[in-house]
């Protein structure tokens, strides 16, 4: 079991990897999250995308993305997640995959799979796409479609089959919450059935739309204990066949996740309009200005920009982190979560039991412990607030 920020992030393995080049204190990045668009055919209520889209600016053009990918390769990035929103809504996706391969990046498509026709998939294969991750909402159509807010489960199953037919390695991702945790056993069985090599059981991280929906999505402790037991057993049973990753729900733990493996340390995110962020949810920190790839090089933004340096290293830390022996391990947790829950991104993440704001989180979690009268969580989806997708003016 492990935890990480995230919304489908590349795990860059830390052992055998230099934190920084010997000459400078700025580390090199290994992974890029390319959010190609915020547009999406689905309105998932658990979506971690921002609830407010950037007020200005159009999506980066094909040429701008190609330039960004090439700069990422030069900066040392070895891995790109092509995500969004729904990356398949970019008709230039295959061209961008080819550009990423050209730049020396391992390419992983993170998709809802809506829009993945055979023709599309074959073009992506030809362009050099290395791997595909498809997100599912549950094990069967009625629940899955009510969580996704759109009929989509059957199409996802077909797309998964197509992906396996074309010999792409497939990761099966499911975001877990109150509505589907009770179906975990069946969800694991579905992942096996569609032939996934890897199963990502991702407890909801409460950012964006998920934060808005937290009361409806937070699980009970009983649900979680059961889920952990099932996931641990599946991991053993499927060893060597399907890699099972269970991402812990940090609201329920004692220590925070080592978010992004440290701010400005391993990863960067470029959002659809070209803002470069230390993490995909950093726009939750309203006062921080993020520089844009249209004005600056990726190298400059990574090394010099105010945003990337604001929480880099340990010097910014308040107590209790400042004198804690975990500070180089969890980096004080997540800045965005600190901002969302305490109003100040510079505080210790309340997911740490040592945080002076821990009671804020405890109150939220305690509030989720009761099942409502007659509630069988997975049949009750009327309390979900579906994501509102960006208007066309952004595109």
């Amino acid at each position, binding site marked *: 079991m492990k935890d990480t920020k995230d919304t489908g992030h*590349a*795990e*860059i*393995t830390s052992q*055998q*990897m*230099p934190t920084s*080049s010997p000459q400078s204190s700025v580390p*090199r990045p*290994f*992974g890029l999250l390319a959010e190609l668009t915020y547009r999406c055919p689905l309105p998932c209520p658990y979506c971690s995308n921002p609830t407010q889209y950037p007020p200005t600016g159009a999506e980066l053009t094909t040429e701008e993305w190609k330039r960004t990918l090439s700069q990422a*390769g*030069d900066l*040392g990035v*070895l*891995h790109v997640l092509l995500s969004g929103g729904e990356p398949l809504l970019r008709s230039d996706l295959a061209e961008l995959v080819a550009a990423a391969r050209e730049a*020396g990046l*391992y390419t*992983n498509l993170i998709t809802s799979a809506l829009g993945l026709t055979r023709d599309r998939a074959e073009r992506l294969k030809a362009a050099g796409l*290395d*791997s595909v*991750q498809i997100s599912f909402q549950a094990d069967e159509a009625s629940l899955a479609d009510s969580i996704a807010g759109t009929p989509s489960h059957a199409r996802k199953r077909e797309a998964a089959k197509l992906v396996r037919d074309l*010999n792409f*390695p497939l*990761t099966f991702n499911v975001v877990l919450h109150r509505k589907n945790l009770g179906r975990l056993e069946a969800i694991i069985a579905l992942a096996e059935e569609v032939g996934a*090599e*890897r199963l990502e059981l991702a407890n909801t991280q409460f950012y964006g739309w998920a934060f808005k929906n937290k009361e409806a999505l937070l699980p009970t402790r009983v649900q979680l204990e059961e889920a952990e037991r099932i996931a641990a057993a599946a991991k053993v049973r499927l*060893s*060597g*066949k399907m*890699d099972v*990753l269970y991402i812990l729900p940090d609201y329920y733990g004692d220590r925070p996740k080592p978010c992004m493996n440290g701010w400005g340390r391993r990863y960067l995110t470029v959002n659809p309009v070209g803002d470069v962020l230390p993490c995909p949810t950093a726009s939750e920190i309203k006062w921080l200005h993020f520089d844009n790839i249209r004005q600056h090089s990726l190298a400059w933004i990574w090394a010099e920009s105010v945003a990337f340096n604001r929480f880099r290293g340990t010097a910014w830390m308040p107590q209790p982190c400042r004198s804690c022996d975990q500070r180089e391990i969890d980096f004080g947790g997540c800045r965005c979560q600190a901002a969302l829950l305490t109003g100040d991104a510079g505080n210790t993440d309340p997911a740490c039991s040592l945080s002076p704001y821990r009671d804020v989180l405890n109150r939220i979690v305690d509030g989720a412990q009761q099942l409502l009268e007659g509630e069988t969580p997975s049949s009750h989806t009327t309390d979900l607030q579906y994501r509102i997708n960006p208007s066309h003016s952004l595109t």
Partner: protein
Amino acid sequence: MNDEPHNLPLSSGTRPRLAAKARVQTDKISGKLALLYPEGVLLLNPTGAAIVELCDGQHTFQEMVTTLAARYKSSPNSLSSDVAEYLDRLRERGLLELISEEDSYW
């Protein structure tokens, strides 16, 4: 996938092969060999790189050990357990398929 990945203990006739989802390339920054796979990256040290380069489904475990022993001027016996351990770590991450002796006839 035609070959199911096997979960067998290493024997001398096993032919390790990098999983289809993984690939290697030289890292521009460090010059090291980088092992790339869906959820991350491993930068390999020189011995790791030498081992991974022999995981081509052609060399048996025994042949790998002999080749490495010659290259590093050490005895196959003393290398064998280190190599096995390294391969096991790769296998745990799902980065290695072990083709058993019987399978390799087909």
